[in-house]
């Protein structure tokens, strides 16, 4: 499993692909909606990360994510599951 900075790097790479513009400078406190990717775009972004990491996050757990930290913790939890 990747460590947190690797997960953030992966997030930035996937966010750049999905948003079709460069996204960097993300850290754990970044609020996802502030990145200018709308909520449904975020869903696609999380989906690409799940695919790359070989994990599955149940739909209901995708509700209530605010910061990158929320997402990373969820990924860590699912990877450990």
């Amino acid at each position, binding site marked *: 499993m990747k460590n947190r900075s690797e997960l953030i790097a992966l997030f930035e790479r996937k966010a750049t692909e999905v948003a079709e513009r460069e996204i960097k400078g993300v850290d754990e406190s970044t609020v996802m909606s502030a990145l200018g990717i709308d909520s449904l775009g975020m*869903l696609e972004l999380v989906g690409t990360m799940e695919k790359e990491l070989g994990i599955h996050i149940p739909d209901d757990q995708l509700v209530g994510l605010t910061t990158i930290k929320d997402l990373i913790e969820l990924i860590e939890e699912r990877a450990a599951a």
Partner: protein
Amino acid sequence: MGDSRLAEKVYRAYATFFDQAEAERRWNPYRDVPWGEINREVSDDLILVAETFCAVESYLPDYVAKGINLVRKSFGQAWFAANWAYEESKHSIALQEYLVRSGRRTEEQMFDLQDRLKELEWKLPFETARQMTIYGCFQEMATFYIYVRQEARAQTEGDGALRTIFRLNARDEIAHTHFYEDVVKLLLEEDRAGTLADIALVTRGFRMPAADLVPEYDERVAVMREAGIDRDTFLQKVYFPVLKYLGVTRRELVEAAEADRKPRTAQPYRTGEIETWRTTTLGSPRRGKT
């Protein structure tokens, strides 16, 4: 499967929808709302909700004109659009009637609002019939959910008339959702990859109708607080349930979106009978964010 088989199935979906509508869902905004149960003291917020959704519903001429043109070659969908327009027309009439009868707006204010609304024109958020059908699933379901929540609120505030309007509107909206979902299921059977790509496209560009047209929409939603629909609610109550009904997974959509981002060879985005679902006048489908 040929084009005519698809057309037949869509027509059957429409026949089922229309039969049920005629048998179980007809209502009269003047006679079926208990106007005597208006509570003249309901909160300003609730009035703002009624007025805002009256405004959103008032773009009907644009929704109808543009929508029906897109599907004119599909008998089932074109007749659905005609019937849909009739049902939708009652939603704004009932809300407008409420605002005036409750004494919270004058007739003049309502006509002024209608005039202001007409200064702007609603445009199709997506370009093909298939994309708009998918959009219809999410939009109708979101509207259904909003009305259901407002029905509960009108009940809490003791207004039987407004409660009934929200309930009747909601009942129509969920019927519209199911028709669109049934058609999208048929389209998935016909061309799963293409339909998935369109679901991914619509997902990325989704916005509620007329959000950028209704005067002060964002301020209205901010004041109305829970009348809008936030991200999490949209996912839980609208997006995931629709995907589940369609039998589509998020993983499939991610793959479709990834394939879509890869450079494409010029030719056909969609082929064969699906072409008939696309208007001939709008050109090729828009790619990327809308």
